[in-house]
């Protein structure tokens, strides 16, 4: 069936709500027709306002309540229309959700899903633009999921909600228009998922996640023209991170670029570079690996600055061409 990334998320919600009576959704904007794009349209009408709960402007308590509902055996999904708002919910996520299994000796299980939406651009500025996936990847106990394809948007959301662990599911509004067909749902086990090769190539390994993976694919197509064959790896699961596939790929291509929509210092791109350095013999790479990410600045509003703030395919092509001495 024809879908886009947004409707794929919607169909995951529908699947979960139809098949699991203990699935419940809580968050801001759920009774509005437009709050989270096309990704939750009419869920309230279809499944009732008891299970699709729109809330006061209280990120901290709403997230904590979802954590508590999970401890009580439900499958709650808490929706944050913008990742930046979650800075009010950090205790519930990091001190509580991520730690209850461990702190109770594995007896409590906190299967909450936290849907964090990256919602940037449009001159919204520094407090309405952040991609903090690296933060969550830093925290043991949290699973961090970042789908870049239409099928992953649906299937990883279902897997996240069915996981007995707390999962940070991060989607990006810049992907909602991406189209693809969807097979009928078949449930997958989140613990078995990891990075995936989106496209094979022998010259360079390009690693990315979420929207950056789309950029990587675009850039790869342009690089082909320049005679550079890229292997694009979509991280998909940022925590716990399994770098094996990347290490294998780099063993073949001997070149590495990481694209990411977050900041550099202590970001996910650095983590990939570090994992490769740790796990390959010196000289395994022929050229220095590169990171393509945000500049070290908050997101600007002015269109004049915003248009150069985010990584672009052109940008990626330029940087990678340089590695191979082309341009």
């Amino acid at each position, binding site marked *: 069936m024809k879908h886009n990334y947004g409707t794929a998320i919607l169909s995951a919600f529908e699947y979960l709500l139809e098949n699991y009576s203990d699935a419940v959704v809580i968050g*801001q*904007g759920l*009774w*509005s*027709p*437009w*709050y989270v794009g096309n990704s939750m349209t009419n869920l309230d009408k279809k499944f009732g306002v008891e299970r699709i709960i*729109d*809330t*006061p*402007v*209280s*990120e*901290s*308590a709403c997230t904590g309540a979802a954590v508590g509902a999970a401890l009580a055996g439900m499958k709650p999904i808490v929706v944050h229309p913008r990742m*930046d*708002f979650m*800075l*009010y919910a950090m205790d519930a996520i990091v001190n509580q959700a991520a730690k209850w299994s461990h702190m109770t000796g594995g007896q409590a299980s906190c299967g909450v899903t936290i849907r964090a939406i990256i919602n940037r651009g*449009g*001159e*919204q*500025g*520094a*407090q*309405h633009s952040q991609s903090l996936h690296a933060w969550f990847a830093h925290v043991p106990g949290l699973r961090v999921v970042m789908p870049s394809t239409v099928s992953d948007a649906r299937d990883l959301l279902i897997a996240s909600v069915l996981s007995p662990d707390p999962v940070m599911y991060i989607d990006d509004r810049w992907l909602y228009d991406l189209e693809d067909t969807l097979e009928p749902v078949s449930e997958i086990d989140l613990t078995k998922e990891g990075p995936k090769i989106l496209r094979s190539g022998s010259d360079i390994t390009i690693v990315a996640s979420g929207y950056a993976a789309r950029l990587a694919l675009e850039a790869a197509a342009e690089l082909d023209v320049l005679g550079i064959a890229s292997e694009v790896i979509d991280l998909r699961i940022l925590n716990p991170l399994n770098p094996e596939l990347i290490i294998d790929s780099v063993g073949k291509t001997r070149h590495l670029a990481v694209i990411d929509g977050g900041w550099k210092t202590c970001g996910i791109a650095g983590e990939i570079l570090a994992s490769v350095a740790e796990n390959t013999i010196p000289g395994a790479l022929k050229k220095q690996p590169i990171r393509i990410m945000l*500049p*070290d*600045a*908050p997101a*600007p*509003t*002015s*269109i*004049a*600055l915003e248009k*150069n*703030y985010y990584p672009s395919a052109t940008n990626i092509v330029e940087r990678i061409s340089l590695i191979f001495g082309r341009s």
Partner: protein
Amino acid sequence: MDDFLLQELSDPDHFQEPISIENIDSDTLIRYLNGMLRIRYAERRLARGKKEGDIGGPVHLGVGQEAIAVGISGNLRKTDRIFGAHRSHSHVLSMGADLYRLFAEVLGKDDGLSRGMGGSMHLWDQANGFYGSVPIVSGTVPLAVGAALAAKLQNTEDVGVIYLGDGAVEEGVVHESLNLARVMGVPVLFVVENNLFASHMHISLRQPKYATARFAVANDMLYEIVDGNDVVKMHQTSKNLISYARTNSMPVFLEAVTYRWYGHVDWREDIDVGVNRSEEEVAAWRKRDPVARLVCAMLARGVYSEDDIESLELRIEKETEIAWQQAKESHYPPHSALLGRVYASKMYD
């Protein structure tokens, strides 16, 4: 009032009559009217700019709520410390901000109030007492408490002012801030512009009672609840509260009941978006217009004639348009601003 249900204050069929202007001199009334019209024309220009695609970022318009900031700002000094949020055009303009610079900011220009780095949701005009606004709901509330605490420590007798919405009151940090201000004896005025909505959600879906001033009671704070669409009442009530805060170095709380004519963001009415928002309700609230109610009162007393009003509006409209065009023509920040403005200690353009 003590049941905190708001009754008529939240019912748009009440308070549509001209406001009472007894004992208020004409100059003052003219100042109020000028202040409100300046804001209204500015926001209408922004609505048009957004609709026509000149503005890229979101604009949160407060048309219908102008009396609040105008009433309050008349009691403030340029050395006071005023903070706003996402819907703050009125807050900064009423303190005397330059219209051209506001427009330039919304358009992301270097001459903007925040040098083009903020847009409509991040305004800054400290020279006029406006310490800043940002779109994280409730984010500025503790900041205002801190800036007011600073005033106390600096012995300036300045006060802090924080404008927040009825939705912001649902954020925990607001409650921490109320208590902190009270316990530390901080001279700060909390202004809740209760427009009954937070984005699409009516207050009845978010809180058990309509009046947020119940939290002033819980925090043992002097408070008032007023018709936010009555500029005279706004001015007088806030005058007393602010002078109490200044004199006693204590926080005070002012709840102004009002309504926004436009949708939550941008220029549409967004009737369909709001849960419990209806065309009838918007129409009724448009009759509780803070501008029209003042105008009618002024006409009735003969302060102004219909002609006076018309020429006043014409003049303001023209000034607005000039500022807008000037802003459109001004230049963007240099590329170096992106990295050059991150750290105060390493500033370059």
